[in-house]
């Protein structure tokens, strides 16, 4: 009971600074104590009880983060149903998150509600985020552009940091050592005294990296170190005015001597909460972020600079939000903001800037006791592409005490990114092909023509430079939840229809035999499937959970082509062309049809210890087309067989303040085989077992 009180206190505390109006509402609602702690903000931008939401939301609690002993965001996400961390490209590429089969490019990542920038070819590296000071991670599946705008197609991941709640200085220091000389130290401290609160977090990670291609020179993951610092201030001036400021800085450097590879990510957030009345809440938020990379590829023999790839992206965003509570159970949310974005990149002719303005509104209400409806829309006006209206409606109906139905339809979009608009890049080392962003392609082609580098133009000159549309999707989710006693279960059917996906096209053939590429809105894909979760409390201290996702993800145009008999493959024996059938089409790359997770968490209070076992399985998936027909089919020798990763962790608390933890990730030492490895050489999928030990001192 005292535990719940603490949670209640923490919740209350958090609410007052974060969403004053929502807090009132939540208190008004009679909520069971044991579910009260499970509140999320990402789904509605107001505090909502997880179990009452009409949307598919995954909540990863601090407790789960702590018990599993993981230190980075990507590791914990991979253990959640319907979320897969998968190689972005094939060999040597980064890893990206996939939600409902939707790639990382279309997943928005937030820290305390504000977006993180800095994507490499569309992919955001989630291992950048240390989770030592995180209260919880919220993942809303399906499109949420009605609240968050661009990029929120596949889902939104929101990292919620913790607010200090103790009058005394509290905190922790911990060190974790793991395989590959992975050393992670962090310090987290904070204090909330009277009206003032502060917290500070520092994290250092270094590792020797690892190698998946043992017989090739160089390492897959080079040795690196990184630092994360996060300082936050809270000032609750009065019942009506609260202030919050946060600064975060991340620095990472790879040891690739004599080359250079550095990355920084800085975020500054300032927010004022104003509650003119019990029912009304205003939030004024200013956010600035700056992501940079500094990469120089230097020839190790003659020290010649091969490639310089610098990246400097900035976003400044003021936003105002407003909440108004209608009694008893309705809340109106509205907001407006302005994005100033700029990017300076070596591969661009000059620094480019975007401006966009947006408005959103949402009404969350209960027409009658058992029915909750949330309806909202957002309008984004952008300087570089056509404006977007993103509506969404969701509803939940409580059929009985234990059983509820929920469904939602929403739209998402992703603005063409800087690369797709402004890239001006000729790869001299890679054969001399050229890529132009849409906004610079007309001028670029003209330039090449003047230089006599264009052999034939493949598109109408008048079509060059027509503006790109945003990529967009409509997502449908429909599911049931059932909770009774020791059992909690959920099943969700999803379908996401994407259109206007931006693809590359050939603009012209060059006289050197290479192509000039541009970008075009072309592809339509869909992902659909079922995700289901089952939790069962076997004993007081033993929790079992299992999750499964069934996924189908295809390019619609490709399926039509197959129906028209226009897709061919090659017989592996004769090499002759054969016509492919629908059953030969495997679907989109990097998608597993089946993903399964199974977890056991066991608490032993008399020993102050806990143990857990987590198993994550993904079925066979393909990496790339190899036979030149532009789709992944059964004849492509690029499939990775299904595999399971088994993670194990034990923890025990000593002398009240010390906690020791040890375990293994990938306990079965799975390594796998990358089918794209050169003949007679081996490239692994996974570096194998990773042991770890961690000591934590709490004060």
């Amino acid at each position, binding site marked *: 009971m005292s535990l719940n009180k603490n949670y209640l206190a923490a919740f209350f505390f958090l609410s007052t600074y974060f969403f004053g109006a929502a807090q009132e509402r939540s208190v008004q609602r009679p909520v069971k104590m044991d579910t009260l702690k499970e509140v999320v903000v990402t789904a509605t931008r107001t505090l909502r009880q997880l179990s009452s939401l009409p949307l598919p939301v995954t909540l990863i609690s601090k407790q789960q983060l702590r018990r599993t002993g993981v230190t980075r965001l990507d590791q914990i996400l991979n253990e959640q149903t319907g979320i897969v961390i998968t190689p972005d*490209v*094939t*060999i040597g590429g980064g890893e990206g998150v996939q939600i409902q089969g939707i790639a990382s490019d279309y997943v928005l990542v937030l820290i305390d509600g504000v977006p993180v920038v800095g994507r490499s070819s569309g992919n955001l590296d989630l291992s950048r985020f240390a989770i030592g000071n995180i209260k919880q991670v919220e993942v809303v599946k399906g499109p949420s552009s009605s609240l968050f705008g661009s990029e929120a197609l596949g889902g939104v991941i929101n990292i919620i940091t913790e607010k200090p709640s103790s009058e005394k200085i509290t905190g922790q220091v911990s060190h974790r050592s793991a395989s590959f000389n992975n050393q992670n130290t962090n310090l987290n401290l904070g204090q909330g005294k009277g009206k003032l609160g502060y917290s500070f977090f520092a994290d250092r990670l270094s590792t020797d990296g690892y190698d998946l291609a043992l017989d090739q020179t160089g390492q897959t993951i080079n040795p690196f170190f990184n630092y994360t610092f996060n300082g936050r201030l809270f000032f609750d001036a009065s019942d009506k005015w609260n202030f919050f400021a946060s600064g975060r800085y991340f620095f990472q450097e790879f040891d690739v001597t004599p080359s250079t590879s550095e990355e920084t990510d800085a975020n500054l957030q300032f927010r004022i909460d104003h509650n003119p009345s019990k029912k009304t809440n205003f939030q004024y938020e200013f956010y600035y972020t700056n992501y940079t990379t500094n990469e120089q590829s230097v020839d190790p023999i003659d020290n010649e600079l091969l490639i310089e790839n610098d990246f400097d992206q900035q976003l400044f965003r003021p936003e105002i939000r407003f909440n108004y509570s209608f009694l008893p159970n309705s809340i109106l949310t509205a907001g407006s903001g302005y994005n100033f974005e700029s990017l300076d990149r070596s591969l661009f002719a000059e620094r480019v800037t975007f401006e966009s303005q947006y408005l959103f509104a949402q009404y969350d209400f209960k027409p009658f006791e058992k029915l909750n409806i949330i309806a909202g829309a957002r309008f984004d006006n952008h300087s570089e592409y056509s404006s977007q209206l993103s509506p969404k409606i969701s509803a939940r109906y409580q059929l009985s005490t234990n059983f509820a139905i929920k469904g939602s339809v929403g739209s998402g979009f992703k603005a063409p990114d800087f690369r797709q608009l402004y890239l001006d890049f000729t*790869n*001299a*080392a*890679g*054969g*001399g092909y050229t890529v132009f962003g849409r906004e610079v392609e007309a001028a670029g082609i003209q330039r090449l023509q003047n230089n006599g580098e264009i*052999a*034939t133009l*493949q598109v109408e000159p008048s079509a060059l430079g027509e503006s790109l549309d945003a990529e967009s999707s409509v997502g449908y989710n429909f599911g049931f939840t059932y909770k009774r006693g020791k059992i909690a279960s959920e099943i969700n059917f999803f379908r996401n229809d994407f259109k206007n996906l931006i693809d590359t096209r*050939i603009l012209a*053939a*060059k*006289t*050197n*035999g*290479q*192509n000039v590429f541009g970008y075009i809105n072309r592809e339509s894909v869909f992902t659909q499937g079922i995700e289901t979760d089952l939790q069962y409390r076997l004993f007081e201290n033993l929790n079992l959970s299992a999750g499964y996702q069934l996924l189908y993800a295809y390019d619609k145009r490709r399926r039509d082509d197959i129906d028209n008999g*226009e*897709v*061919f*493959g*090659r017989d*592996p*024996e*004769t*090499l*002759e*062309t*054969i*016509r492919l059938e629908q059953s030969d089409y495997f679907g989109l790359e990097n998608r597993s049809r089946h993903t399964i997770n199974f977890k056991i968490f066991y608490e032993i209070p008399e020993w102050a210890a806990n143990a857990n076992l987590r198993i994550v399985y993904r079925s066979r998936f393909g990496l*790339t*087309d*190899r*036979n*030149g*027909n*532009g789709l992944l089919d059964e004849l492509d*020798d690029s499939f990775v067989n299904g595999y399971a990763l088994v993670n194990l962790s034990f923890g025990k608390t000593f002398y009240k303040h010390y906690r020791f933890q040890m375990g293994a990730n990938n306990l079965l030492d799975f390594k796998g085989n990358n089918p*794209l490895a*050169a*003949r*007679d050489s081996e490239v692994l999928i996974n570096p194998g077992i990773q042991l770890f030990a961690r000591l934590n001192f709490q004060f």
Partner: protein
Amino acid sequence: MKTTFKLFSLLFVLCAFIACSDDDDGDSITEFTVTAVSPESGTIGTEITITGTNFPTDISLINLTIGGTPATISSLSSSQIVTTVPVGASSGDVSISTSDFTQTAPTSFTVLENLELGTIENIFAPQTGGQGQGEIGGEFTKFSFDTGAVTQSDTDWDIAFRGTTIAVNGGSVTGTNDEPERNGNAGAAIVNGIFDEVTTANGLTFSQDANGAFAIPTGSDNGWYNYNFMTNVVSPIPGIVLVFRTRTGKYAKIEVLSYYENAPSNPDGFVDAPRYYTFNYVYNPNEGGTSLSN
């Protein structure tokens, strides 16, 4: 006088009898006609049907030749003879004769040469430069369909290879380094489909090399191949059939099977030697023949 009359009468009757009996055992003697031969051209072994009237129905009495070469009759009726083009036949008249008559079909028959088909392996098509190594250059490797082999001739070639580039002996030079002079009337058409399903060159539009552009467009996904930068592999696009008009106006089709030496089924872009063409081809050596399938 009476006796003379009687003798004459007897002679007449006799003659008439003889004439009649001659008529009677002379089915073969009746004059027959030949009205048509179908088809009017075909390769050796092609079944042809000859129609007419009053054909003798005894195979042994008929002597059938095509261009002077005796042909075997496989079935016979008074209005139709079925035969096949015999080995060794050359174009010419279709002639049917009996001991008494010889008739020639109103149209002559053209014996076509068989389509030539096969697999050409490992045509090496080296190039210098490219892929960041400076300007592309090097001699093209030339190929002639009528010999079915690589040729050094500056004139008797139909298509030529250098790296991923395929030139045709028709049109004009494109402007690239070291390319051969175009002195024929070759052209190329790209057809989507399965090799066997491309049965004719009829109705296709043939492009020729021109200043700045090859008839078969260069570059990944433009012409016959695509390049996967991740695996560093050049793959012939499945379902692409290249149909050529040769320098002399005959037709051929090819399907490139592999760009790597010895045509491995899963080429390794970092191990296998590239620029080795292996392709299936069908060549119609007949003047004006557009058929690309038997």
